[in-house]
């Protein structure tokens, strides 16, 4: 009698304590899934993965990033500066860009050629 009461109180405690006719099906299913044991080498696998992460993750300090950006700016500014200092005679070359004599465009604009 005591045991029966104990059983009833246990099933009352958890809303999933008694799943009616489904209880056995579900419990068997879960029991079967819980028979699977985790791979004993899983911890080693995780540690190896973490080692790999440590090797690939190269942390660049912020001062290095700033230094690289500053050097780019410096080089460009120096280019402009040096360019403006250049002195000397400038040679002008005249190029004839009138190429009308090269090809007679009337050939393409004629409408009564048919």
């Amino acid at each position, binding site marked *: 009698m005591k045991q029966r009461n104990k059983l009833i109180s246990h099933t009352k405690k*958890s*809303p*999933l304590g008694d*799943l*009616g*006719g*489904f209880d056995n*099906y*579900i419990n068997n*299913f*879960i029991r*079967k*899934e*819980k028979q*699977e*044991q*985790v*791979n004993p080498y*899983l*911890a*080693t*696998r*995780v*540690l190896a*993965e*973490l080692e790999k*992460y440590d090797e690939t993750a190269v942390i660049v300090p912020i001062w290095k990033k700033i230094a690289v950006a500053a050097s780019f700016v410096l080089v460009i500014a120096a280019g402009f500066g040096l360019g403006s200092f250049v002195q000397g005679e400038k040679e002008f070359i005249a190029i004839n860009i009138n190429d009308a004599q090269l090809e007679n465009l009337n050939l393409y604009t004629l409408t009564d050629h048919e």
Partner: protein
Amino acid sequence: MSDEQLIEKILSGDKEAFRLLMEKYQQQVFYVAMGFVHSREDAEDITQEVFIRVFHSLGSFKEKSLFSTWLYRIALNTSINYINKNKRQKFFTEAGDNLMNLFNRNNEEKNAHQQLEAAETEKSIQKAIDELPVKQRKAFILSKYEELSQRKIAEIMQTSEGAVEQLLVRAKKNLQNKLAHLVGK
């Protein structure tokens, strides 16, 4: 060695302490993952991902709750993310399995009917659990796979014990509705 001591050691760079912590909790995390994916390989992938996450965010773990509570939260979130990521892949795997069952049905006459029936039952239960709404599913898995108390589940899910009870009652009703066809067998 307590969890706090292990965490302290890990934070000072002791990877062996992390191994001990993993060995202590890997089976629990694995069961949670199994509850979600029902496949050993996938559950192991999730367990691995969980512990990698734990390692990287251990610095941000505030000892307001127990380490196990925090770990369960990560395990639940990682499992849900994993499922969402692999939904399409699962569809093709299931299609392949069905095709294999069809071939096996033709090849193995002996006990084929019984085997098929058992497989169908398992598949129905699996589908019913998988179709539970996320919160009900989390509560169900923590209750049935991990056999945790409602108080512990409430802590993990950051809700009240009453809310957990409600979730479990609704999960039970949903399962009953979805598995009604099994009772007649």
